[in-house]
């Protein structure tokens, strides 16, 4: 077994600092493993080590001993994060062959610390999906059962980390697209507070909800990555990061008083959530109580509306954001002599069925006569839900829910019924609507037909209280309540 492939970023960093391993050796081992396993897993659309572009050669090969953030380590990039001259498609045929002229700030922050991207990971087209079955470049497979979905939309990114093909992956989370695949693949998936990471250079889906997130195999790895990525960015006016927070130091501290966790009652329902997942939730509550943490049941009014609201707002924003793919500004140039027909031709051929569905829903809820009934109403309820969650978080340090209502499901089992697919994110969208940070932690496995499938639980905390959430992850991992396990099939 090549232990390096399944080690945490913290341990890899230690080996590099102690000169037991060079950054180049590590990158080569990871790239070789990616090339070997990608035909089976299809998590990468492009493996960038195959490129010879100058943009992929970075000078920093030795980590700074004074800096404890993520440095000189490889990572994978979701296929909607621009890297200069590297094909970036957002999983869509409409952007096939497009090479951006600039690099996303979050990726640049990692480059500045000597990190290199192994490749662009597969995703649902324009991040619209919960299973990764809407990717134009084939479906990534769950490393725990190749017949099951890895979750979505950042499914390829989650698979790359879970199967040892990258120690860190960047994804995006608009309504659970990092945390849900993290739970399905048995790793950590973290979405920061809206505004902590820059969105410059990220292909937009729903701008008021989109946020870059990260996948790792260790709790402290999350803090290392946040330390490097969360930087102020004058190129994104919604970015509110400051460079004075040291996330690794803060996450390593123990709590000065036992945290109080609110368990949202709505999800303690076997009709909504798989009983196998609820069993893990119950066990987790028992264990954290033994640690001295206080656990209370809480109710979140209007929670059941968060999913429909999410779809109204995200589809409205996507119908506007995706108007730019018209063959003039972006997309292949059509050849119809009439401009309107050219738009129609390019968009109809370029977009897949789920993207077309969401654009239509967005167009409908924004159209005159329906805007007040749907979009404006959804905005009002969004604010009300945000207030309600913030009220709960003034009384509790964290809110606890299952990450997903289901275990990883089989390919094709939900694609015919879009509404059924949408419910995969039922436990997570309220976090995006309120702009809060959230993390899915791997807490164990449940067996179906003799196959072990991962289970994740989800914690959220107050806005810009990300360090406290990371601190909780580290403490829970140290107490043995969560942690990564390598899928047997991929242990070399």
């Amino acid at each position: 077994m090549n232990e390096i492939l399944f080690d945490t970023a913290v341990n890899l960093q230690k080996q590099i600092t102690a000169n037991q391993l060079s950054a180049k050796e590590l990158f080569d081992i990871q790239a070789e493993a990616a090339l070997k396993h990608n035909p089976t897993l299809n998590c990468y659309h492009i493996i960038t080590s195959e490129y010879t572009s100058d943009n992929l050669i970075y000078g920093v090969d030795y980590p700074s001993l004074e800096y404890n953030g993520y440095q000189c380590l490889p990572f994978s990039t979701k296929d909607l994060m621009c890297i200069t001259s590297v094909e970036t498609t957002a999983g869509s045929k409409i952007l096939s062959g497009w090479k951006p002229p600039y690099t996303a700030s979050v990726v640049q922050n990692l480059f500045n610390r000597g990190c290199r991207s192994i490749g662009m990971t597969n995703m649902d087209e324009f991040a619209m999906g919960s299973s990764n079955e809407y990717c134009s470049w084939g479906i990534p497979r769950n490393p725990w059962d190749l017949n099951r979905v890895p979750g979505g939309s950042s499914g390829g990114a989650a698979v790359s980390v879970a199967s040892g093909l990258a120690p860190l992956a960047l994804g995006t989370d608009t309504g659970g697209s990092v945390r849900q695949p993290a739970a399905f693949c048995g790793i950590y998936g973290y979405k920061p507070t809206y505004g902590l990471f820059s969105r410059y250079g990220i292909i937009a889906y729903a701008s008021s909800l989109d946020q870059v997130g990260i996948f790792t195999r260790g709790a402290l790895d999350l803090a290392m990555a946040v330390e490097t990525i969360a930087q102020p960015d004058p190129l994104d006016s919604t970015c509110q990061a400051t460079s004075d927070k040291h996330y690794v130091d803060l996450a390593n501290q123990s709590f000065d008083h036992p945290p109080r966790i609110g368990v949202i009652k709505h999800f303690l329902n076997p009709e909504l959530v798989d009983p196998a997942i609820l069993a893990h939730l119950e066990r987790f509550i028992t264990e954290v109580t033994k640690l001295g943490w206080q656990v209370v049941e809480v109710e979140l009014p209007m929670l059941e509306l968060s999913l429909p609201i999410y779809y109204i707002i995200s589809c409205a924003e996507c119908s506007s954001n995706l108007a730019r793919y018209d063959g003039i500004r972006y997309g292949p140039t059509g050849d119809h002599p009439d401009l309107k027909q050219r738009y129609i031709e390019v968009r109809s051929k370029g977009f897949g069925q789920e993207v077309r569905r969401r654009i239509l829903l967005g167009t409908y809820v924004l159209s005159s006569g329906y805007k007040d009934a749907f979009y404006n109403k959804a905005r009002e309820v969004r604010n009300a839900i945000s207030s309600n969650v913030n009220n709960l978080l003034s009384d509790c340090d964290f809110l606890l829910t299952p990450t997903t209502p289901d275990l990883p499901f089989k390919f094709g089992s939900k694609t015919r019924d879009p509404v059924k697919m949408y419910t995969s994110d039922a436990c997570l969208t309220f976090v995006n609507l309120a702009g809060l940070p959230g993390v899915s932690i791997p807490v164990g496995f449940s067996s179906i037909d003799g196959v072990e499938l991962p289970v994740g639980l989800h914690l959220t905390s107050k806005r810009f209280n990300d360090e406290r959430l990371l601190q909780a992850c580290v403490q829970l991992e140290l107490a043995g309540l969560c942690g990564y396990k390598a899928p047997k099939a991929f242990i070399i």
Partner: protein
Amino acid sequence: MSEEEITKLLDLARLELSNHEISGLAQQFGDMLQFVGQVNSAAQNLEQKPMILKDSIAFRDDIISQTRICSSEFISARQKDSRRDFIVPRIVGGEARDE
């Protein structure tokens, strides 16, 4: 939702589907509208409360918030050529006639 309504929406969204796809979508779209329509009925009795800025997400299109970019960055930024805002490309085809 009727197929005519779907066709109208497709036109607004600059998309085109085959008749077979439109009839399939008409059924799915009905389910989707029923799903998102819960908001409309449930929000009838919603109490209107102003929200404090610190509790809201960073992106609010109804509130002008203070930027965190320091003034020196603004000063050192390249001057914008405002004339470019008024250069309108010549539009050919049906769009120009609609105007």
